């Protein structure tokens, strides 16, 4: 009997028009008439706007670090303004001779960020570091324990914004989770109190909370009880953010099938262990995108502290623009401000995406 021998057909390259650059263009930019039209409109728009923007920001711009040789005949941006104001924008009115302290704090904090993003340490150590490092960093900036005190009214700039945001995030996530669990509790009192807290805080704009914390609270508190302004504002931010995070987390908790709890119960696990080991990890995984969204929002919301007299990054930008020696640099100031906010917020959302990818199952 004859057996036919099977030889696989040779692999051929794909047709010219469906591969490489041309294939990509066809699939993505010109897949239909409408798509093609939009592509052309977008190209025309960029053609008109991009070159002037680049020439203003880069080519025609002044890049000298010191104001000495600033020539006024350039048509582009004058970044010298940013360089000159840089210290104030970052640190506010923090005394110049003590500047090593906030710089060291930024370095510590930056290292921790890098260690978190690149997972250089175990998760458990990272969480502990985030929980406990803010305290020594606070003393480093504030003084005390041998270091000369720096009054908090002198703090400001990006240092104040990131400080408020980091402490806000670290505290409001656990408080938010507790509120969310409380809202689903079977104990009526706990449940009612959680709902009341969440709904009261969510019903009020952040500005109002900050105003209450800063202006009204001292009126109601006894005379000798003196909580400083910054702390009150920080507590206001934490409360506001945790109410929103509670609702985000509650959404995640509701997405968990009751069978999960029953299965864990049937193994004999105590109910707090069931929540901690089985329900919460899954619920939090579901809500990473909106949780990161809340953190980004919190960071941007810190710019509202200007209404209670604290000069955060945006506040310092505004103040610098009004410096009589440096009038007329609004565009540079706000472009720089937007860029810094964007870089930080974009990094946060990219980090969020990376945790999502890591926790797929």
């Amino acid at each position: 009997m004859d057996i036919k021998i099977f030889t696989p057909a040779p692999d051929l390259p794909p047709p010219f028009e469906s591969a490489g650059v041309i294939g990509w263009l066809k699939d993505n930019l010109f897949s239909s008439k409408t798509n093609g039209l939009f592509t052309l409109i977008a190209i025309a728009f960029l053609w008109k706007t991009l070159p002037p923007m680049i020439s203003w920001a880069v080519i025609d711009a002044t890049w000298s670090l010191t104001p000495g040789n600033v020539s006024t005949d350039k048509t582009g941006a004058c970044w010298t303004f940013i360089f000159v104001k840089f210290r104030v924008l970052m640190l506010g009115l923090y005394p110049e001779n003590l500047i090593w302290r906030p710089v060291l704090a930024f370095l510590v904090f930056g290292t921790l960020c890098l260690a978190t993003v690149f997972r250089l340490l175990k998760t458990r150590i990272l969480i502990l570091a985030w929980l406990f490092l803010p305290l020594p960093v606070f003393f480093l900036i504030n003084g005390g324990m041998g270091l000369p005190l720096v009054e908090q009214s002198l703090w400001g700039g990006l240092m104040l914004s990131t400080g408020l945001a980091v402490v806000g995030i670290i505290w409001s996530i656990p408080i938010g989770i507790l509120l969310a669990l409380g809202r689903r509790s079977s104990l009526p009192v706990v449940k009612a109190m959680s709902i009341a807290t969440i709904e009261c805080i969510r019903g009020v704009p952040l500005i109002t909370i900050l105003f209450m914390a800063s202006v009204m609270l001292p009126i109601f508190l006894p005379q000798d009880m003196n909580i400083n302004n910054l702390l009150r504002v920080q507590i206001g931010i934490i409360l506001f953010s945790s109410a929103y995070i509670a609702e985000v987390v509650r959404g995640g908790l509701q997405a968990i099938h009751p069978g999960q709890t029953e299965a864990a119960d049937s193994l004999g696990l105590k109910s707090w262990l069931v929540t901690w080991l089985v329900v919460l990890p899954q619920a939090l995984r579901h809500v990473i995108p909106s949780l990161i969204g809340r953190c980004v929002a919190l960071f941007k919301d810190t710019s509202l502290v200007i209404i209670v007299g604290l000069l955060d990054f945006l506040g310092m930008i505004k103040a610098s623009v009004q410096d009589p020696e440096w009038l007329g640099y609004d565009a540079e100031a706000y472009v720089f401000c937007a860029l810094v906010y964007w870089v930080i917020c974009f990094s946060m959302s990219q980090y969020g995406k990376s945790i999502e990818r890591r926790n797929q199952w």
Partner: protein
Amino acid sequence: MADSPMIKIKDLNKWYANFHVLKNINLSVQKGEIIVICGPSGSGKSTLIRCINRIETHQKGSIHVMGTELTPKIKNISAVRRDVGMVFQNFDLFPHMTVLENLVLAPCWLLKLPRKQAEKKAMTLLERVQIQSQAHKMPGQLSGGQQQRVAIARALCMDPKIMLFDEPTSALDPEMVKEVLDVIKQLARDGMTMICVTHEMGFARQVANRIIFMDGGEIVEENAPSEFFTHPQWDRTQKFLSQILD
């Protein structure tokens, strides 16, 4: 004490709001007995076995599990649940943990076993359900039959004295039913006390000591398999069997 039943249920009644799900259930299960509960859907079979480890609470009557009565005031429900393993229709493995982590969770947290020791035990159990090669996969990567076998191994991790199966094969493709039933049969041969809610009549005929037929929240008929299939006492049982057997 040696002859006292593992499970003793007396005049059990349960309501969901106004709906009377379980009516005057009396049942006692001896050590090593294998009970199969069958009946049309909505007859209260699942509710009954879920009452035995108090995932559902009852309103009237009493349930004793290995001498402990299940009451609203019970202090140590988790000790009872440790002795009663349960396998669910939809497996309900924890999707965010590997197969091995699913198995060691309860021993590590409840018995405070060292991780290494718990893993060793888990591997023996996985071997017993013939799935040891999948130990480091996530549950989502396994087939339904494999997941259900893992769920059985997870329930066995706490060395339960009683196993409850709530329709363990009804969410499975037909070709996977056998691999799961084989594991349960093996357990039956090893002398485990168990109650199994199932529609697999061939399995019931082979392994059960007693078959219980429920309808409308009541136990209609209770008999040895040989009698149950050949001489059903009630017309309702007869009708059910004629529908399910051909």
